[in-house]
């Protein structure tokens, strides 16, 4: 198989992939929450903006989004901040932002369908007890929506993990990048891509496992017979 130098290089790439994934996931999730809340405000303009955001991210390939963030966006920044950014691993942070935005659109949609699966009467029940709109959202609606959408959210996390590979287009040295690099250096294509595939599978299975744990822990028993 591969010499240890190369294996080490691949593991390095894996570490970057995981970093990128976790940073992007946290950002995506928080942003998705904001999107969901803004969307429920029921103001025409808010709904319009969120919908446009979601449609853009769902209908344009991720690669193009990443390129846009790396080459398009920083031009709008002030000069000083821009050079600071370039000196501090701009590739990684901009890739994380692009990935996070792309995923947040999907996560927001997942949570929104979770919300729609909650009977409207839950909302009424909480309001009838005198709790405010925000309290109702925070303690009653959102926790249930999250529990209902765990399944889709796990799939989403998995996709995000795999999609981190597009970051290589702007020079983030993650797993696929490293694999290509090694392949190019040695022309030992099968070993290199074999090892990379195994690493990806390990990461994916880890995410699935954690997801299953969470799902088992928070499963929502909505009771037999009562919708």
């Amino acid at each position, binding site marked *: 198989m591969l010499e240890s130098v190369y294996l080490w290089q691949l593991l390095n790439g894996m570490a970057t992939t995981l970093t990128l994934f976790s940073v992007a996931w946290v950002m995506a999730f928080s942003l998705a929450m904001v999107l969901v809340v803004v969307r429920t405000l029921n103001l025409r303009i808010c709904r319009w903006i969120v919908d446009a955001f979601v*449609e*853009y991210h*769902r*209908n*344009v*390939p*991720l*690669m*193009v*989004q990443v*390129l*846009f963030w790396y*080459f*398009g966006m920083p031009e709008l920044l002030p000069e000083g901040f821009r050079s600071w950014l370039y000196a501090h691993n701009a590739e990684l942070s901009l890739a994380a932002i692009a990935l996070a935005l792309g995923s947040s659109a999907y996560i927001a949609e997942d949570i929104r369908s979770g919300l729609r699966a909650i009977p409207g009467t839950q909302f009424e029940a909480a309001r009838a007890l005198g709790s405010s709109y925000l309290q109702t959202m925070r303690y009653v609606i959102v926790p249930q929506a999250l529990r209902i959408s765990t*399944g889709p959210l796990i*799939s989403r996390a*998995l996709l995000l993990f*795999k999609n981190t*590979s597009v970051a290589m287009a702007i020079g983030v040295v993650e797993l*696929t990048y490293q694999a290509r690099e090694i392949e190019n250096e040695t022309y030992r294509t*099968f070993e290199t*891509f074999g090892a*990379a*595939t195994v690493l*990806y*599978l390990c990461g*994916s*299975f880890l995410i*699935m496992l954690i997801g299953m744990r969470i799902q088992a822990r928070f499963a929502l028993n909505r009771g037999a017979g009562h919708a």
Partner: protein
Amino acid sequence: MLDILQQYWLMLLVGQYPNGPLGGLAMTLILAVCGLSLSFPLAILLAVARTSPYRWVARISGYTVNMIRGMPLLMLIFWAYFVLPKVTGHSISGFWTLVCALVVYESAYLSEVIRAGIEAIPKGQIEASRSLGVGYWTTLRKVILPQALFNVLPGMTSQFVSTIKETSLGYVISVNELTFAANQINNMVLTQPLQVFGILAIMYFIVCFSLSRAVGWLDRKIRRVRQMSPA
């Protein structure tokens, strides 16, 4: 941007055709249609297997699906590229390699969507059909699948949209589709990647967005006919 479009629009639409192989947007659409129409029946089969009353059928198909879901499409394409000729003994074009990889990948994802739909059908529906003396397969065909597939139409649409977007990975194995064409143009123009990729983004957006809208319209129409509440 406009000058690029003016000069290269034919290449974006059909690639080198008719002087060379078909490519560009036309190829992307052909790929997507092939990928979808082949993965759809496979996905249904997988979903039915996963909800099958036979434990081992359900388990094996479950492992298969999770295995595929755990792998980046890029890797899958790569392996298909080299494994397929070994298995079939024939050399296989990049086009069919990509179609095979897409079909495998998409049917795993699509089967998850469909499975969720099947599992959400109230048990009473199945019991009602069975108690009328109708067998398992007819029940599946006439009662479960029509409802399940209809209910997950939105989920399937977004899966279709991602298939269209994922054909763009074909450029790794030099399948002459839209992104490949854009890359070629980018190599010729050389100094305006943003404009080239901007055009690319717009083209994908138009195709994908119209597809989602068309399905949404169909969904509402069927609901109206069946006098069901809007989703």
